[in-house]
């Protein structure tokens, strides 16, 4: 079906091409042609002059030419026409005329001669394009070019730059340009630049300042040293925020992985060692959904939230009905049996799908990062997962506190026999709880698929950590799980830089073992009747 569509589209395009070619060049193209022809010489200095000429020509196509030249896409045909290659992968390249921008169809790479450049020219081109962009009406383009100029300003540019800064309307561009100018000033030993760079987090500013701090002029050096100190201070704060962010992100994953466990363990006193594999199934559901809906990773991801929940919940019910119900009152045996199930599920995925990791695509609205400043940018996918974890937590809280099911679950948790004699069907509550806990594991898998590789061992890597969270937080207490998960995540991230990832993990495990000494029932122990289960 898709192939036919593409074929039809291709026919349409080909039919349209001849008419497009009928349009002709406008009169001033002879001047433009001259500008370009100056580029096609063998001497690199001559090419440099030609580039300057193009810059000064005020031709509105100049930027495209320069960009194409920089990328090696400005080429010349055998009959002397200048063309821009649109896509230089593959054997035949689609090209367009450099002067008229009209498409010329595909050409073989053998019929084209590239206009070569060297590194010096490449640098010249880069700053030239940045300068051209500074005058562009497009704000985004001005921003990128201003950022690119940091540390690249030279004597020639400094003078027009101050004018530009005064004229600039966009605040961000203005600040960037001021910084770029200040870096130039510091590099050339002027004191006024140092003041402007105070607090700037850009690495180029730091390089310029530390060079100035070791410079000859004692006044400038002192000022630079002072400015550097303030920057370091600022950086430290930013690094702290970043650590906290990563810690919270890790913590949110732990919370997601552990909260389902907390429910089943809290209510039924049952350790489900296959919980990690339910997480894995959720992740694989996401992968499967993306296979079913190719090209729409975002939609697939959103659909896999209910799908992952359902898949994991159904498997959970199967486990409860098939095994756990026969092991009532024997928690240690339940642990072993569910461990067996986890082995089977893992091996099943290995045989049916593949022992190798699968990649789950991150949809566009989740990729990239939120740039706070030069030293701090928060990745979006982690932020979404953090938000997702909080939403899941809040909805579980609501279910437990505000619904009939939650009421029954709490009743059964506190006193099973009494609840049954009051007419609550404990078996049904068990099934529903187990389904809920397993479903949440599936949700955790959906979220995890956006952060790590999806493979058969995915769940195994999280199971011990999530047990630790449950034990640390106190069984049967959702708030405990939230606080324990987030704080363990943050502790781990704080320890990691000076202890290394592995040692940090070990320290956290030892910490929990010691913590249990003080509070055997976790951070938030159950009180009153619920405590004597």
């Amino acid at each position, binding site marked *: 079906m898709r192939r036919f569509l593409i074929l039809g589209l291709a026919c349409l395009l080909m039919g349209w091409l001849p008419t497009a070619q009928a349009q002709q060049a406008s009169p001033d193209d002879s001047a433009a042609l001259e500008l370009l022809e100056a580029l096609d010489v063998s001497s690199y200095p001559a090419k440099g002059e030609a580039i300057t000429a193009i810059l000064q020509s005020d031709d509105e196509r100049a930027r495209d030419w320069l960009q194409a030249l920089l990328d090696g896409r400005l080429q010349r045909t055998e009959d002397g026409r200048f063309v821009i290659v649109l896509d230089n992968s593959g054997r035949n390249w689609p090209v367009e005329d450099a002067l008229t921008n009209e498409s010329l169809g595909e050409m073989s790479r053998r019929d084209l001669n590239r206009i070569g450049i060297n590194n010096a020219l490449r640098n010249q081109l880069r700053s030239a394009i940045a300068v051209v962009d500074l005058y562009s009406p497009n704000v985004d383009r001005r921003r990128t070019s201003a950022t690119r100029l940091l540390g690249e300003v030279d004597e020639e540019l400094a003078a027009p730059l101050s004018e530009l800064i005064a004229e600039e309307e966009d605040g961000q561009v203005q600040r960037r340009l001021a910084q770029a100018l200040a870096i130039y000033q510091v590099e050339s030993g002027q004191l006024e630049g140092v003041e402007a760079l105070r607090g700037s987090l850009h690495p180029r500013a730091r390089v310029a300042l530390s060079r100035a701090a070791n410079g000859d002029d004692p006044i400038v050096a002192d000022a630079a040293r002072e400015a550097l100190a303030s920057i370091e201070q600022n950086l430290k704060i930013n690094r702290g925020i970043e650590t906290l962010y990563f810690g919270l992100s890790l913590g949110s994953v732990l919370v997601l992985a552990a909260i389902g466990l907390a429910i089943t*363990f809290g209510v039924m*006193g049952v*350790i489900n060692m296959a919980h990690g594999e339910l997480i894995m199934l959720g992740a694989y559901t996401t992968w499967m959904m993306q296979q079913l809906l190719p090209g729409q990773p975002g939609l697939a991801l959103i659909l896999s939230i209910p799908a992952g929940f359902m898949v994991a919940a159904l498997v959970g019910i199967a486990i409860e009905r098939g*095994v756990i119900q*026969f*092991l009532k009152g*024997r*928690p*240690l*045996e*339940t*642990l*072993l*049996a569910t*461990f*067996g*199930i*986890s*082995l*089977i599920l*893992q*091996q*099943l995925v*290995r*045989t049916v799908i593949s022992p190798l990791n699968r990649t789950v695509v991150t949809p566009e609205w989740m990729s990239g990062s939120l740039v706070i400043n030069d030293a701090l940018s928060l990745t979006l996918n982690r932020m979404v997962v953090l938000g997702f974890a909080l939403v899941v937590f809040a909805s579980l809280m609501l279910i437990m506190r505000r619904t009939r099911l939650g009421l029954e679950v709490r009743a059964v948790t506190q006193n099973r026999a009494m609840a049954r004699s009051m007419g609550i069907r404990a078996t049904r509550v068990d099934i529903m709880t187990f389904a809920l806990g397993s479903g949440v594991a599936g949700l955790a898998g959906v979220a995890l698929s956006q952060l790590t590789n999806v493979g058969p061992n995915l769940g195994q890597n999280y199971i*011990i950590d999530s*047990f*630790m969270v449950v*034990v640390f937080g106190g069984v049967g207490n959702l708030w405990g799980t939230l606080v324990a998960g987030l704080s363990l995540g943050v502790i781990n991230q704080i320890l990691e830089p000076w202890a290394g990832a*592995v*040692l940090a*993990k*070990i320290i956290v*495990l*030892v910490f*929990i*073992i*010691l913590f*249990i*000494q*003080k509070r*055997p029932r976790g951070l938030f122990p159950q009180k009153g009747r619920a405590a004597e289960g």
Partner: protein
Amino acid sequence: MMTQSSSSQFWLTRPLGERTTQIFLGVLFAALLLVTVLHLAVPQGHPLYVNAYTVNLFGKYLSYALLAVAVDLVWGYLGILSLGHGAFFAIGGYAMGMYLMRQIGDRGTYGHPVLPDFMVFLNWDSLPWYWYGFDMAWFAFAMVLLAPGLLALVFGFLAFRSRVTGVYLSIITQALTFALMLAFFRNEMGFGGNNGLTDFRELLGYNLRSNDTRLGLFIATGVALALGYILCRAIVTSKLGRVCVATRDAEARTRFIGYRVERFQLFVFVVSAMLAGLAGALYVPQVGIINPSEFSPLFSIEIVLWVALGGRATLYGAVIGAILVNYAKTVFTGVMPDAWLFALGAMFVLVTVLLPKGVAGLLIRRKRQKHDERASTGEASA
């Protein structure tokens, strides 16, 4: 009844008067003798000949069996499901491995007189302090018991004192072995990191690659298993053992009666860890390598399966289970490696759901049935 009548005897020899112990030891020594004879006296190529590889394999099974007995002691009689006994096994193994490493001397690849190869490779210039003394056999063999014992003492003291029991304790023991696995994977720990310790040459002067040494290790493991079994049996049938069983069945009540439950738990836990360490020390020279994978939580939980399959709280059941499961593993991984994890997983589920008393439970039931039949037929004829 039997224990009462023989209570005047020395406590360690008391189990020798029991019928099950006699049968177990009889079967064990008969098996040892049979394998030895079939290996030495039968000519090669004869269908009954047992080659050195098989002897080695049996030796490995026997060290696993000793480990299973150690786990059964705490799980069967104390109710503590330890998911971290692999750690004690591995530490005992590492102690032995360190001794064997020092025995290599200057015959390693790099030819350094003191440092093992991996340390030379990592550019270490001297031996870390905890490697001192491991060139002496008596010290190393003492550490085989003391190192796991000490870890169990500290860990058990902390855990039992604060009354961590049940699934909590299982999870904490699992975390313990997991943490140790991560730690031993690090090169900086000085235990060979990923690759562990290997390339051993000789033990007490005997070449580890010769068939005679292998046979000797096999017999030694068998004897160790017998002694371990007798020791566990002695503990279990003693007064202390009965307090343990009481703790297993009703911890709170035992405490209320006035027993310091945590002390009993700690003692038995440490003994069990030492036995596990001994099993590890016998295992390492037979397989020729010790690496951090022995610390993996999967291995520790597999040990529990051996015990569950064989039958909890019987001791001989643990031996049966260890040998059965490991034999099955050898067969499966040879014939169809992919199916092994399915089989293992299925075993976990089936044993816990359908066979809660394990193979030993089946044996006991069969015996009882026969007994009942005989009783009823006797009545009928009379």
